[in-house]
């Protein structure tokens, strides 16, 4: 394939900086847990359902433990101790706590409690491993075996109603979509609980609930069998309940999760410490479940300029990569994100798009790169928009991107109509087909404009990461180095859910899910 001449030593230096940046954050954050990490732990141990006020039982138990001052030792231990004492299941313990029939006091034999928690964790991991194996089997049966004509076509449904979503997702799969993402209802990222059951009312999207996951999974499996492809299901592992959504997704065999280490901090004003702790635990679950994470660097370019801020995208991808390694993800599980967002009026803008996409491809040769379509410069002129999307499709195939989010010509107008998706798929299939082997036929001119541009972005990335390493990631975010948005370490939502671990804190999942410890990249 076409290659740019890049200075490998420069890439290595940048990556080493990113490794130290992420490592330092990890060490600082490992001293605390969060309410949602503990709720995710309880979900994995089998606690589900809601009380008479629709409050999820994991929330009821964790709130109770917080009142009892016991959460700093981990929810798993207190619940396991009560299970031992009462001879109940975890669910029965949760129901009794919610009904006010049981007070958890953290008493009892700690070793026995650990054993009980460990046994539940082992059972839970077995289920998730079985789901992972089933995914592999279904992909194998579909004849994909890594031979699928990439990039994968990624489509979004966003009706607010899971049953309408299913209709649209099935149509999309029949038309050629490889990945279906169910957009979440706006505002869910700021809910400190996960809604329950099948939902039909959402705004700009559909609530992420375990039942909605299950319904969509079943529908995609069915249509996948019909069209002879495995249709990948995507949702949003972000916001205040990141780890819980990861747990639900792992249990219900989702395939991809939007899961960025910094997105919530920057764009949702969620507290930094909360996010860093939550992203670690959620990524660990995603890693174990074989889920591909998608990072959100494309968003930087909706606030910052795509030409001037290109290096912030690459720097953030390198940091996201290192956080992902710390959570045990393999490179092919890293859907590092970037976007085609240069102003179409800019002369040679297409060259800079090509340069950036190729640069990212070469810096992360094994990652499942996620390439996002134009949004910022889309207008109501749908005809021009269709051309912008065609150029985006072209860069994607020429630079061998992996996860290709389809651009909609009605991007600036409304959530897509069914024909918008249909035309977007036609556009992409046409471009991917007619240019299928173009990438292996062309070379970039040595010392040409494209190569120079890629080298310049790489050099800026290296110095940006060196600066972040010097001041630390929290200070870098506080200074607005990403997306020109400033956030402080103690600002934002959800800090009250960050809890310092007490001596004897226990969580049965990391040692199982991070077999062999964190990976090193």
């Amino acid at each position: 394939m076409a290659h740019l001449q890049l200075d490998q030593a420069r890439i290595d230096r940048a990556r080493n900086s990113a490794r130290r940046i992420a490592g330092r954050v990890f060490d600082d954050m490992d001293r605390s847990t969060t309410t949602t990490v503990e709720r995710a732990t309880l979900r994995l141990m089998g606690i589900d359902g809601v009380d008479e006020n629709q409050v999820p039982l994991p929330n009821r138990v964790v709130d109770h433990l917080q009142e009892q001052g016991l959460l700093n030792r981990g929810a798993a231990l207190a619940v396991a101790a009560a299970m031992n004492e009462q001879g109940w299941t975890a669910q029965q313990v949760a129901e009794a706590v919610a009904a006010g029939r049981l007070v958890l006091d953290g008493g009892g034999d700690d070793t026995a409690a650990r054993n009980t928690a460990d046994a539940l964790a082992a059972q839970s991991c077995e289920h998730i491993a079985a789901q992972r194996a089933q995914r592999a089997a279904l992909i194998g049966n579909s004849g994909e075996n890594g031979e699928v004509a990439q990039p994968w076509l990624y489509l979004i449904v966003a009706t607010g109603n899971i049953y309408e979503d299913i209709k649209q997702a099935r149509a999309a799969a029949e038309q050629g979509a490889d990945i279906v993402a169910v957009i979440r209802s706006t505002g869910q990222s700021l809910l400190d609980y996960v809604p329950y059951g099948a939902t039909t009312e959402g705004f700009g999207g559909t609530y992420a609930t375990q039942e909605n996951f299950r319904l969509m999974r079943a529908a995609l499996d069915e249509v996948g069998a019909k069209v002879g492809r495995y249709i990948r299901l995507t949702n949003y592992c972000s916001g205040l309940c990141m780890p819980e959504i990861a747990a639900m997704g792992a249990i219900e065999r989702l395939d991809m999760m939007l899961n960025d280490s910094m997105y919530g901090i920057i764009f949702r004003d969620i507290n930094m410490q909360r996010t860093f702790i939550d992203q670690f635990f959620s990524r660990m679950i995603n890693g174990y479940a074989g889920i591909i994470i998608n990072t959100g660097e494309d968003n930087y370019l909706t606030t910052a300029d795509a030409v001037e801020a290109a290096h912030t995208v690459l720097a953030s991808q390198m940091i996201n990569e290192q956080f992902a390694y710390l959570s045990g993800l393999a490179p092919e599980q890293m859907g590092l994100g970037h976007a085609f967002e240069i102003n179409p009026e800019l002369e040679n803008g297409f060259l800079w798009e090509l340069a950036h996409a190729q640069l990212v491809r070469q810096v992360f040769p094994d990652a499942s790169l996620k390439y996002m379509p134009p949004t910022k410069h889309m207008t109501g002129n749908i005809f021009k928009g269709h051309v912008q999307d065609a150029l985006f499709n072209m860069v994607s195939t020429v630079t061998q991107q992996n996860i290709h989010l389809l651009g909609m010509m009605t991007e600036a107008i409304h959530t897509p109509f069914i024909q918008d998706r249909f035309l977007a798929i036609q556009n992409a299939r046409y471009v991917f087909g007619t240019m299928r082997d173009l990438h292996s036929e062309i070379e970039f001119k040595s010392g040409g404009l494209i190569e120079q541009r890629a080298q310049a972005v790489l050099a800026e990335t290296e110095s940006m990461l060196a600066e972040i390493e010097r001041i630390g990631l929290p200070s870098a975010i506080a200074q607005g180095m990403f997306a020109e948005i400033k956030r402080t370490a103690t600002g934002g939502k959800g800090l009250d859910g960050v809890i310092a671990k007490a001596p004897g804190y226990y969580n049965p999942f990391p040692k199982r899910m991070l077999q062999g410890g964190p990976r090193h990249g």
Partner: protein
Amino acid sequence: MAEQWIKPYGDTQDDGRVQLSFTLPVPLDEVSKEGARRLALAMGLDEPAVVHAEDMGQGFSFYVLYGQSKHRIDLSTIQVAKPEFEVLDKEGVNALIAEKMGRKMVVVGACIETDAHTVGIDAIMNMKGYNGHKGLESYHEVRAINMGAQVDSEELVARAIEERADVILVSQVVTQKNIHLDNLTRLSDILEAEGMRERIILVVGGPRISHELAKELGYDAGFGPKSYAEDVASFAINEWIKRKAA
């Protein structure tokens, strides 16, 4: 005023030629194709022709049609609500604020309620602006406070009180089932309830916003696509001067 009747133009005056496309929730066959043609007829198109029809799977089919509009419109009878003010450039706005207000104009902006899309508010408020038009943060005589996305109306109003805002700027980008109308009405109701509505210049922007719609919702002005910081700022200082004089 002299009548000015018009209809769409294809390649000959008054040919009325239009294109449209739509999906029908049935599989493609001869009947559905004829159905698409008759729909166009019912929409007021003469000699409609289905130039493209395709099955989309799952019981849906897609059509592209051309036809000739039966209808025409007399432009001389149309009145459109527009904010009336002169659009100044950045320096002009700064000079006018300095001269008339003698202090900085305070603008608090946000994407309110469910809306998570900051593209619009950022284009108007952030330093960099959009398409070469610098945002309000770059205006010497404006103190611009961008609260970002998914801000509760209450939170926005509280901040406006705290900052002694002259202008509240809200953006509504993504809309589904017209949720943006509920969001906007809510904000204006809260301002009324707080007794602040009179003191605040209330402005809304977004791809689906027109000045007319904004006025209907009780806002002072509405800005649609292709509006920049200088448009909003020019309106705001103009409105401030007008109110001061009243």
